[in-house]
């Protein structure tokens, strides 16, 4: 028992070390195009992790997370492109815009759950989309905002990649601490049964607001990273599909885990950008992959791997994931 547990832990540590080593070595191995995709996938993964904190851990599926990340991106873009302000002001306004959106949306959504939570967050995302199209002076409407420059220190594509890697790994560790903290455990309680949590004396409304704002913080960071990667922001970053793809990435990789959304993001980014070079019908391919995952690996890629691991290789060890979906069917998943 003890021995198999430590094998699992060793494998996990080994994989993490390998992953980071691969991430650091990547610019020496791949072309600038692939490294650009790595940056995009890392940012998408952070975004999907912020969704998964809500959807996978707290059982609150959101379809408006892009509204928060895009608010931050527009904050940066506005200061850079329209005001011509320096980096500190760009970052400050970006953070304030993203966090304000998260706080306001959190207050709006904290009293709902299940399908209603999905609908409220969907509406929130659409509000930001509507504003981005309407407020020409601030957002440039359909044309978007150009003239956003990366900080000179990390301007080169590989430097920006390393910076992204650093931020994403740091966020990942922070998220790991959060989900294993008492707060994280109470989130799982929220997911399993909100009424029971309330009966135990938890203020579930406040709990939802906390987690919404925390998830909003990571979405904000992903929005800021993305706007400097693309040096451009336009309403297509706020469309419903932008939020939905984050949810899909989490489901594909495995909800209720932190590594799952990251894997999902890498799969989707590479199908979208690399497979599409060879296969004109790549959206069909993605559709088939989703159908197969939902039917045969309901806990996503990570869930399927851990299934095999705990059943075949390390039997007897407790599968920490097995309660994720088994407990009850999360609405909307």
């Amino acid at each position, binding site marked *: 028992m003890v021995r198999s547990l430590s094998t699992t832990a060793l494998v996990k540590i080994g994989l993490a070390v390998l992953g980071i080593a691969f991430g650091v070595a990547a610019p020496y191995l791949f072309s600038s195009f692939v490294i650009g995709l790595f940056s995009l996938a890392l940012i998408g993964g952070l975004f999907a992790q912020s969704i998964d904190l809500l959807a996978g851990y707290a059982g609150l599926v959101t379809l408006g997370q892009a509204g928060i990340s895009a608010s931050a991106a527009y904050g940066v873009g506005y200061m850079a492109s329209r005001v011509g302000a320096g980096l500190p002001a760009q970052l400050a306004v970006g953070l304030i815009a993203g966090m304000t959106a998260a706080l306001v949306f959190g207050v709006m959504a904290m009293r709902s759950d299940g399908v209603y939570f999905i609908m409220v967050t969907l509406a929130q995302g659409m509000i930001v989309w509507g504003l981005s199209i309407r407020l020409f002076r601030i957002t440039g409407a359909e044309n978007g905002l150009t003239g956003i420059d990366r900080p000179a220190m990390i301007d080169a594509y590989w430097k920006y990649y390393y910076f992204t890697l650093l931020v994403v790994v740091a966020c990942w560790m922070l998220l790991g601490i959060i989900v294993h903290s008492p707060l994280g455990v109470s989130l799982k309680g929220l997911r399993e049964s909100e009424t029971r949590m309330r009966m135990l004396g938890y203020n579930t409304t406040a709990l939802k607001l906390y987690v919404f704002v925390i998830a909003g913080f990571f979405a904000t960071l992903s929005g800021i990273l993305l706007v400097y990667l693309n040096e451009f922001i336009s309403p297509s970053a706020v469309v419903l599909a932008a939020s939905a793809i984050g949810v899909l990435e989490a489901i594909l990789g495995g909800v209720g885990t932190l590594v799952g959304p990251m894997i999902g993001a890498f799969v989707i980014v590479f199908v979208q950008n690399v497979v*599409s070079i060879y296969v004109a019908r790549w959206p069909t391919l993605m559709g*088939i992959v989703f159908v197969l995952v939902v039917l045969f690996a309901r806990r996503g890629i990570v869930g399927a791997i851990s299934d095999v691991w705990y059943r075949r290789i390390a039997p007897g060890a407790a599968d920490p994931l097995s309660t994720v979906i088994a407990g009850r069917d999360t609405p909307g998943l």
Partner: protein
Amino acid sequence: MTRIRRAIVLVSVLALVLAACAAPDAEEDTTSTAAPSTTAADSSDTTESSATTEATTGTGCDEPIRIGVLQPLTGGLAASGTDAKNGFELYWQNHSTEVAGCTIEFRIEDTGGNPDTALQKVDELVGNYGADIIIGELLANVTLALADRLKDNPDVIFMAPIGSADDLTQRTPYPNFIRAGGWTSSQTSHVLGSWAADQGYERAATFCTDYAFGWEMCGGFTQVFTEEGGTVVSGEQLWNPLGSTDLGTYVTQLSGFAPDAVFVLQVGASVSDFFQNWSDFGISGQIPILAGEVTADVSNIRNVPVDQVEGLISSGHWAEGRDAPETQEFVELFDAATGLLPSYYAAATWTAAQYIDATIQAMGGDISDKAATLETMRGLELLTPFGPSVLDEFGNPIYDIYIRQVVVRDDGRVWNEVIDTYENVDQFWPKSADEYLAQPVYTREFQGNAGG
């Protein structure tokens, strides 16, 4: 249980595959058919200069000249993007890809209409494929994002024959950007405003889609129409959200205004919805419609019942029914290849290819000096399917702009024939560049109808 699951999977997979096969001609590989050896596999080569061996056949070139094309081939704009792709490919199927001793290769990539994807792909096309020329996207925002990304790269020429955002060649021009084969949104509606005033219309209402392209189209019409004596009251300018499909309420409001004419700019699925409502409410024939170019484009009206669009007046730089050999030759080739009358998307990428062809010939095959190449391209005077085309100092074409009328052809299909021509219209017409650039770009707030 497992059996049921398996059956579900089988059915859904089959359904998806069938759906994929049923769609027209997006099946083929996205790599070009004309280019002799550009398999996609070459491009995954990570080394910078993977000189292909067969390039030595030419006299002027060590390496082929590479063109990267970015269009939305999937998603909501796939039909228009595929038209653009077909137009470009058709040119090279009918012209030699050996120009002045150089081999021309091209690769067409799908953006899905998404700026993120487009930016990644343009990095790939420039960095890995080694593209000398990039041809940009349909959508204004994607085109702007690409122009911004490529502005610091002096080794690449960026052409946008379709994306028509005014400011690309007005207030924020880019040094390596050229709109050969393209247009600015308000360039064509300026002319329609003037034409409407000449018809004696005194008061017009407008009905445009509520986004940058709609503002620019509507603004162009409104400003020139009001400056030439017409009236557009801002309360009679209606704006509908992009993608809205029940336009009945707008149509009843428009008929309530009882204007002398209505300027309409709708895009995509809203076009057929508009004409359906216009006909259902019995307003057809009572209030004349003046349509923006895209609304009357053959790609939009080919799906509308003939009686709803016959006689429709619009203005445009493209008129597939224009009675001139340079236009009809292209229309016949396109019709033979695809079974469709060509939209302006197809004509635009064909013309971009024509510009590239002529430029390489004029440069004797050596386009390594991109500044000189751009200078040459700007100096060309070509007879294109659009008609005669020269470029202004901002890189925007000066065209003949046509007042067009939808006519039913002998074979029952509809197309736009020319009923009036305004010669040599530039993007500032009828103003001078300085006077025009002093005013802001058209938005909902600024439509150019002072005090309207």
